[in-house]
């Protein structure tokens, strides 16, 4: 990557994350666990160009990994620190036994350090964690085992200018009898440098005070030169977690080791490059995982992390989790306990993929891991029941097939039953929830009514309609999905239609993107109705409504369709409010990924969304997905706000506008 390209990439990134006027300066917060949902955290602008640069940068380094390792070995040889390449954790333990003069290890917050931690504890080392739940700025001295080493403050996504490169300051004089174990953000091969993103008072103190210093870097952190290292390291500061430290703190980065040797002859430093399966990963399907910078962008935007359920507030455990965890999972095809704890909270909203600066298909990895668990059989009982029900009854809700057409009762006008041999031009694919659930049925009824008013020649698959399989795929049951797809494709071929319209964006998504190519057009009903309206086939009256539109993940973020529903509503006269986070930033309602069956309690985020709507004085929250519809409906009930705001799907709104 040329110097100019790197500089451009840097500037693009700076512009994207320029703090808006709404971002206030945050004071120190006492307790990390009270981290609040930050509605100002948006993914604005077009990330695609910068993503490519960064992805390229990472790929380049990874592609030349073997050469970089050789070069690093050679270059670091001339520095004051030892250079050790360890293939696995066992080798690392051997190394530390030889190198460390103290059995007390003081560690910084680092994923690579976490990879080795359990093994160190087994060997009887005492480990002092410098990242605790409470922040204390006071620098009073006390003994090593308590929180003298105050935790790192996550600093805000500041503009790059304030992230400066400075050499580290090593104390002269007396040092503590302990071994520091420090994670590393990037290792530059030429010139040989270690880059660490440092926060005020944490790593600095660890580095200042410890007798032996072990810098632990995964081999994937090797980059060719200083510019790459600086870019990579600073990106972590930019994409990092929501700001909770004062902007007054001056983050520092960068260090070199000439200082170390100069300060004290008793102190030693070593750079350890840890492989632990990473080069194996390079040769596998999942090599993209190695591009990860641990920037935490995915975590800070993930609705499941910390918000969907209280028990998920375990830091650094997902979506991508510890590199060590990922390596174990994909290398040994085995799910670690950390993974299985959180595995089912993912709603597959896709925010992680959207914000990852190095284009890792995190969502895909999540689904792969779920697939491993599904094949092992160890899924939660509710998941098992949903899957078995889909196999047995063609829907995950345990309703018998015979009830699938009950939604049709009371719909005026004709509905062609394709399963009984009728023919039609348009196939209305109803979906499972709208077929069986009392409340969701209203959406299907509204759609059928509108289709009739517009004189569309449409039909439904009736009792023979089967689950589309989107959530089955997201749950990881590929075998069941293949069977469903096969059966559905047969049905579609028999139906011989020109176009298919779906109620749910989930169905739309899977038919469009995962099914073998179908010989008819597939549309979500909002797009189809817009088409009808624009071509004059749909009569309507103007409707005044104080409403807001919630972008469903599977229509918006996954398929890039943001404006059809809005245009449709605008055309019938409704002026829409907008949520602070809308379109690609839309906050997932928590319904996808199998959560409609697995999650026991309604999540905080959708309640927060309802509160936001109420604060804006909105009367109606308009959804375009039966899952969003169900979750928002329940959230309104749980908030006790039925008097203040109601929830309607686009079809229900349009039905009111019919003459």
């Amino acid at each position, binding site marked *: 990557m040329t110097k100019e390209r790197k500089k451009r990439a840097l500037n693009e990134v700076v512009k994207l994350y320029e703090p808006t006027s709404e971002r206030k300066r945050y004071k120190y917060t006492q307790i990390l666990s009270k981290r609040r949902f930050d509605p100002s955290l948006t993914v604005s602008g077009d990330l695609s160009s910068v993503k490519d640069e960064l992805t390229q940068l990472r790929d380049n380094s990874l592609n030349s990994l073997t050469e970089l390792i050789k070069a690093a070995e050679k270059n670091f040889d001339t520095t004051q620190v030892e250079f050790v390449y360890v293939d696995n954790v066992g080798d690392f333990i051997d190394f530390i036994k030889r190198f460390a003069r103290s059995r007390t290890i003081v560690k910084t917050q680092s994923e690579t350090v976490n990879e080795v931690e359990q093994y160190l504890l087994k060997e009887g080392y005492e480990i002092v964690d410098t990242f605790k739940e409470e922040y204390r700025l006071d620098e009073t001295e006390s003994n090593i085992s308590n929180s003298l080493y105050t935790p790192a403050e996550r600093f805000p996504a500041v503009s790059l200018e304030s992230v400066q490169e400075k050499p580290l300051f090593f104390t002269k004089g007396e040092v503590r009898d302990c071994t520091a174990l420090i994670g590393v953000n990037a290792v530059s091969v030429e010139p040989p440098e270690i880059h660490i993103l440092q926060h005020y008072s944490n790593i600095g103190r660890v580095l200042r005070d410890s007798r032996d210093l072990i810098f632990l870097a995964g081999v994937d952190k090797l980059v060719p030169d200083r510019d790459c290292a600086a870019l990579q390291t600073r990106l972590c500061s930019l994409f990092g977690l929501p700001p909770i430290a004062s902007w007054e703190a001056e983050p520092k980065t960068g260090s070199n080791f000439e200082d170390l040797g100069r300060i004290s002859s008793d102190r030693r430093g070593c750079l350890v490059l840890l492989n632990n399966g990473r080069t194996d990963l390079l040769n596998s399907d999942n090599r993209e995982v190695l591009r990860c910078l641990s920037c935490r962008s995915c975590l800070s935007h993930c609705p499941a992390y910390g918000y969907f359920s209280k028990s998920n507030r375990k830091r650094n455990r997902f979506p991508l989790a510890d590199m060590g965890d990922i390596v174990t999972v994909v290398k040994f095809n085995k799910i670690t306990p950390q993974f299985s704890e959180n595995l089912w909270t993912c709603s597959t909203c896709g925010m992680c993929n959207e914000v990852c600066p190095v284009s890792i298909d995190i969502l895909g990895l999540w689904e792969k891991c779920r697939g491993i668990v599904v094949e*092992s*059989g160890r899924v939660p*009982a509710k998941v098992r029941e949903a899957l*078995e029900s889909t196999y047995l009854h063609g829907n995950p809700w345990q309703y*018998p097939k015979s009830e699938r057409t009950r939604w049709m009762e009371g719909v005026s006008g004709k509905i062609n039953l394709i399963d009984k041999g009728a023919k039609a031009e348009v196939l209305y694919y109803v979906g499972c929830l709208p077929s069986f659930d009392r409340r969701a049925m209203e959406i299907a009824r509204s759609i059928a009514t509108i289709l009739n008013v517009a004189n569309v020649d449409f039909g439904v698959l009736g009792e023979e309609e089967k689950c589309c399989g989107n959530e089955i795929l997201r749950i990881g049951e590929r*075998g069941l999905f293949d069977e469903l797809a096969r059966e559905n494709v047969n049905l579609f071929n028999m139906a011989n239609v020109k176009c298919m319209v779906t109620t749910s964006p989930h169905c739309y998504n899977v038919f469009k993107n995962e099914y073998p190519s179908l010989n008819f057009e597939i549309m979500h009903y909002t797009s189809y109705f817009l088409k009808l309206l624009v071509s004059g086939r749909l009569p309507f009256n103007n409707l005044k409504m104080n409403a807001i539109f919630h972008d469903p993940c599977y229509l918006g973020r996954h398929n890039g369709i943001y404006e059809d529903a809005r245009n449709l509503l605008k055309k019938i006269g409704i002026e829409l409010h907008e949520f602070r986070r809308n379109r690609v930033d839309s906050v997932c309602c928590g319904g996808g990924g199998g959560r409609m069956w697995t999650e026991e309690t309604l999540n905080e985020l959708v309640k927060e969304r309802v509160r936001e709507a109420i604060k804006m004085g909105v009367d109606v929250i308009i959804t375009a997905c039966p899952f969003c519809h169900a979750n928002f409906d329940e959230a309104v009930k749980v908030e006790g706000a039925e008097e203040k705001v109601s929830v309607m799907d686009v079809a229900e709104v349009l039905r009111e506008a019919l003459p």
Partner: protein
Amino acid sequence: MNIVVLVKHAFAPEPGLRIGTDGKSFEKQTLVYEMNEWDSYAVEEAIKIKEQKGAEVVAVSVGKDCDDTLRRCLALGADRAIKIPYDSMDSWQIAEAIHMSIKGERLDLVLAGFQSQDLNNGLVGPILAGMLRLSYAIAVISIEFEDEGVRVKRELEGGFQEEVRLPLPCLLAVQTGINQPRYASIRGILRAKTKEIKESPVILKSSTFEIEKLYSPVVKKAKRIEGSAEEVSSKLIELLKERGLL
């Protein structure tokens, strides 16, 4: 260890099921079949024991069309399956057929579900135990292996439990909730096609009873509160007021 687990390919007693015109049987096409819920706990228990102590698990089922259920057992971890290709509603007949079919098997433990979800007799396990002259226990909610056999807890009425010890071989009929049954993925079921399902050549002996009539019991007592949800809720509240409960 050698474990035989009894599974039934049973129908789910759903609202859709209909009694045939002869008044003595069910309309086949209204029935949806699956592995009997109680038996899925028995199968899981067998596989757990296999994982923990090592065992050969043989699944046995009686039914003309029980292949699906047997294949699912194989996918879950059973080693072999025996199919007895007859349909019967008589527990004694079924127990006898199973008795004949597993005569040559080495038996350390026989596991069964407490009852079937469709007929709810709870008899096949205990009758089989009698025929095999095995010691047995039903309504088992925990199994622990000891030197001399097994120690099990039985779930009694009123939340009480009874702890008993049985020698091996024995038969245990397990209750729901004894474990968390695992899921058999479609791919797993396809892979299990390589495992053997052997058809047993036994013939059923005569039945111990004859069905004269099958019918929906008359809803005798309940007075219906009718109307729309709105009306029904009002009437319910009135009723509660009348009875001094509000």
